[in-house]
């Protein structure tokens, strides 16, 4: 067991570019996702919107402050500050924090503020929240916890005293990201196989026909074929076997393609383009970028320090 763990957490033949990829892709994604609602921002957030902020506030969990909470708190220190003033400040602050994160400028600080502001903004409209927001939280947290600022960042260029990348920490972070994704898919597949509707094709039929938001392809013409039965089982198998197949080098690319294909299907048939895009980026950061061959860049580029293995081989 110790030997397996040592090998699994040992420094393998992967690049650390995934740290930079994770940071840039998550920050740019979150920025675009937030920009996509700007035209309807007032409808979602303001007192002139669909649901008044304090009514939304009444049903939120209380673990994360909302814009209403912040205004109530700040008005004690800054008399006269309005809800709209607080909202506009955090609206732009979030975009600035994400831009700094994407550039790798004051990376840990910008990751911290990006995560905190994302949580506050989403908790303020928690009834409008969905899976893409939860995964953004997860990945922004990893941007805060992982040494993502040590690779492809302005911090590395501007601050010569920037700390070196600890190779041992980087590999543990990569394994955490990978295992998290394995849990995501295994649980997703497990929950599906529990219900009979994924096993008899009904759920797949319903997913691709009833939620067909983009109306690009109509698959109902295939109702008399085993297409939906196969589709349901294929979805379950791709998800449940993900933790095994993605870790076998020979099947990794195939499973990555199948998984990305499944997410492209989610874009086409369910219209969840941001959610699916984020999942594709998550997959690429965890299982594609770390295994790409680096061209002519010496490992010292990252100013790494080699460390002891996590466990002695035994």
């Amino acid at each position, binding site marked *: 067991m110790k030997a397996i763990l040592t090998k699994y957490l040992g420094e393998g033949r992967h690049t650390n570019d995934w740290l930079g990829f994770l940071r840039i892709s998550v920050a740019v994604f979150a920025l675009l996702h937030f920009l996509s609602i700007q035209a309807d921002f007032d409808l*979602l957030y303001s007192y002139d919107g669909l*649901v008044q902020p304090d*009514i939304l506030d009444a049903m939120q969990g209380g673990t994360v402050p909302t814009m209403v909470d912040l205004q109530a708190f700040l008005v004690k220190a800054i008399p006269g500050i309005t809800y709209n003033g607080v909202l506009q400040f955090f609206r732009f602050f979030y975009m600035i924090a994400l831009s700094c994160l994407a550039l790798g400028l004051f990376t840990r600080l910008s990751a911290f503020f990006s995560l905190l502001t994302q949580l506050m903004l989403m908790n303020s409209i928690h009834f*409008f929240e*969905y899976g893409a927001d*939860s*995964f953004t939280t997860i990945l922004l947290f990893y941007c805060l916890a992982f040494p993502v600022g040590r690779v492809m960042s302005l911090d590395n260029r501007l601050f010569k005293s920037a700390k070196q990348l600890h190779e041992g920490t980087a590999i543990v972070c990569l394994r955490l990201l990978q295992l998290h994704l394995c849990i995501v898919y295994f649980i997703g597949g497990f929950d599906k196989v529990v219900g009979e509707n994924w096993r008899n094709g009904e759920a797949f039929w319903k997913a691709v026909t009833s939620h067909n938001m983009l109306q690009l392809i109509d698959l109902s013409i295939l109702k008399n074929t085993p297409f939906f039965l196969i589709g349901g089982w294929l979805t379950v198998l791709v998800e449940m076997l993900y933790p095994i197949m993605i870790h076998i080098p020979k099947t990794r690319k195939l499973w990555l393609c199948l998984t990305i294909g499944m997410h492209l299907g989610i874009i086409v048939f369910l219209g*969840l383009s941001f959610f699916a895009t984020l999942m594709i980026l998550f997959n690429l950061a965890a299982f594609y970028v770390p295994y790409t061959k680096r061209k002519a860049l010496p490992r010292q580029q990252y100013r790494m320090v080699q460390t002891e293995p996590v466990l002695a081989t035994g």
Partner: protein
Amino acid sequence: MKKRIVAGLAALHLLFILLSNLYTSYDTYCAYYEVPKDSAFCKVVKASLGNKALCYYARYTGASTGFGYFAPNVKSPTSLNCLYRGEDIQPTFNSSEAALRYDNLINALIENVNGDKLPQHEWEKKIMLTKQHYNELVFRNIASKLLSDNQLAPDAVNMQLNFVRHLPLHDARLGKTLDNPLFTVQQLKLTINNESNIN
């Protein structure tokens, strides 16, 4: 040494994610098949996850996110109809992303009213009533906003929260059709006036 500490923290984080998701899966399974939640292990996990510090940790790290998307069944689409003098008024969005978020609001409102299950206990009835009142408050907000945006005179509106039923594959193969796909979960007749949108 640093690597060992980081590995230990990572293992704890993963354990938390796994346990909270296994609990959610068990909870979903019990609700779907209507079986009692009597697993001692799950009771322990639930009690542990209810710890305040862990609740904060889960929220700020996203560790409590459930991954059972579209499971065990794919939910039916939903709709919220605002009927004003017989005409259905819907909000207009500039982006599909905002429209998608509005759909999530409707899903959340539907979850509030607990569809076909009747509350068994007094406390369940109270919670259900509170949630129904909350929905009413949200309906009033939305109706008022829609009337004001469309420059319509204040009047009575009929708010309908619906599931959009979908023809099962088996029936589709037999050539059946759905006469009325809407299944109304909650319906309220509200009077919207000029004074306030939360009367």
